[in-house]
């Protein structure tokens, strides 16, 4: 393989800064002496910029997709009862989810959640999120 061929193969990662130091140095040294590879480098930079033009406006994923993911994983509640009082600092919550343990209950005391029913593997590390 010629130096030009080696350089051409590495140009995309030279432009994105993903080459190792030795390879980057080799490319830098070669393009200083090779007009053809300098033109190729310019084209790679141009293509990268073109991709950036299109991808800079790619949208973010919509908020509701997380809920759909939860539903696909099977975490949605099919029934939920909460009894308690914020004033005295406790809350008893009972809910049914599928799959896994059909009924779970927990006691929330001063902000700490204590599981009292339901212990399948998928529940053991639960953290309640505001939007779940």
């Amino acid at each position: 393989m010629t130096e030009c061929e080696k350089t051409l193969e590495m140009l995309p990662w030279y432009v994105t800064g993903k080459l190792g130091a030795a390879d980057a140095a080799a490319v830098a040294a070669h393009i200083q002496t090779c007009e053809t590879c300098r033109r190729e480098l310019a084209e790679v930079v141009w293509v990268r910029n073109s991709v950036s033009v299109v991808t800079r406006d790619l949208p973010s994923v919509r908020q509701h997709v997380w809920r759909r993911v939860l539903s696909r994983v099977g975490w949605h509640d099919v029934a939920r009862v909460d009894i308690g009082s914020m004033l005295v600092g406790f809350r008893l919550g009972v809910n049914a989810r599928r799959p896994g343990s059909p009924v779970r209950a927990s006691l929330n005391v001063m902000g700490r959640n204590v599981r009292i029913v339901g212990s399948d593997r998928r529940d053991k590390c639960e953290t309640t999120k505001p939007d779940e």
Partner: protein
Amino acid sequence: MKTDEALVWSIGQADRAAFRELYDRHADRVYRFALSLVRNGHLAEEVLQETMLAVWKQADKFRGSSKATTWILGIARNQAHGLLRREKKGERLPEDPTFEPDPAETAEIDVRVKQALEKLSDEHQEALHLVFYEEMSLADAAAVLGVPEGTVKSRLFYARKALAKELL
């Protein structure tokens, strides 16, 4: 802060908080990659959902031989191609017409470049996306695409030449 690989390990232990954190870190990345493959917002969302479901189910099989990002995007790619195959067979309903990109956003996009990119094959587009948008190394891009590194190089080369022919 936990690394992505540590989060995947925790998900393998059924840690929901880790799952949520991994989703927050990578949802946009997976969605945008899917969008570059399926070119449809609803389908890209579906790819994201299926990808995250697979991550949840398969996290305990992740051995850390590749980066978590590479693993996740590899799953997303498989989901996207599977979905496109089903689309071609007509197994799905047509797209919901209510989903339209924001005109204010699309107005800013260089339409000519966008059209030229869309003319490229799926293989060329995904290679461009991974290397120039995700800025992946050659090894990582090859891992996501499931092809040898030489194939990634040649796909990028031909994608570049096709774009140049179209636009220069």
